[in-house]
């Protein structure tokens, strides 16, 4: 974790990371540090919200962090994780790809990219299996309904023929009595 050090714009002195007051000229640099570390503040907010499970709000904070500093790789990594949690694999892959572009030597990002890739593939396989199962189910249902329709048709034809025979037989009997 790199610490922020600042050069005082008033006197040119070095301001340590843990303070907002210039040790040389005693000017309050808090607003300047706020502006300089706006992306970190937004990132921290996003991380806290993500830990609470408020993913939509976390994404908004990370978008704000990236609006301030697009090259801030940790925000892309965290965004990729949130997308992965939501199983939005294309978005997760896009975010982690950008993070790797910005920090190609980041081992954490590389592992996450692999994990996302694996999870995305598994999700794709699962999706295909589900689709296949649905298709098979639909086909089975269609075949059953076709069979039922055929049976019903046969029964209908038989009943119709029987009814015709019955009517003709009844008609022949009346003529004979007459």
């Amino acid at each position, binding site marked *: 974790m790199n610490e922020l050090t600042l050069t005082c714009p008033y006197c040119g002195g070095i301001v340590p990371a843990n303070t907002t007051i210039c040790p040389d000229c005693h000017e309050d640099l*808090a*607003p300047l540090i706020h502006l300089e570390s706006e992306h970190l503040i937004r990132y921290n907010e996003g*991380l806290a919200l993500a830990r609470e499970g408020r993913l939509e709000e976390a994404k908004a904070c990370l978008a704000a962090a990236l609006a301030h500093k697009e090259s801030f790789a940790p925000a892309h990594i965290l965004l990729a994780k949130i997308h992965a949690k939501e199983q939005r694999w294309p978005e997760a892959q896009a975010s982690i790809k950008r993070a790797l572009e910005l920090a190609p030597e980041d081992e954490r990002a590389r592992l996450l990219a692999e994990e996302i890739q694996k999870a995305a593939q598994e999700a794709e396989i699962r999706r295909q299996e589900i689709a296949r199962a649905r298709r098979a189910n639909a086909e089975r249902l269609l075949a059953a309904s076709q069979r039922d329709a055929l049976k019903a048709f046969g029964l209908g034809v038989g009943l119709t023929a029987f009814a015709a025979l019955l009517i003709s037989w009844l008609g022949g009997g009346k003529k004979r009595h007459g």
Partner: protein
Amino acid sequence: MGRTFDFEDPFYPVPPAAVDANPAVAIRDLLYRVARLEQSLGEQRVQAIADMKEILLELVSLSDDITNIVERWGVATKAQEAALIGSVIALGRKIVATLRHHRVEPIDTIGQPLDPETSDVAGTEANEHVPAGVVLREVQVGYKWPQGLLRRARVIVSSGPAPNAQAEETSGVAQAQGSADEAATDKHTSQTNER
């Protein structure tokens, strides 16, 4: 789903005062401070110009005094006098160089029509050869500098040809005498005023 998707990333340390700071308020305060500094700077600049003008007027006056001394002294008859006059002249040149360095330039008035923007009329003289309203000579040299007019010139202006020769002669003598007196008085007055 593996542990990689857990949100265990560390927070970035930012001083709490910086998190709570309102940059808009700070920028407003800064702009206010800048405005006050600009105003102060403007006032200081005006004061500096006024101070510089005062110093340059002193130098101009000193230069006039040295010129008068040299003119009054005339030709030196002794070596000691000549050395003294030479030193005074060198001092005068240094003062002129200093004035030039500060871009103080004498206003060219002689032979020019009177410019009321830069010159005051100290007197008039009849002159056959010079048309009326044209400056004949300077009682006090005027100076300009980058900020404008440093010192107004005081000049004798031609009033054109005299009505008749006798009158011209009479008035010429009287006026010559008068103007000489006037010039002396003017010089004395101007030096006193400048000081």
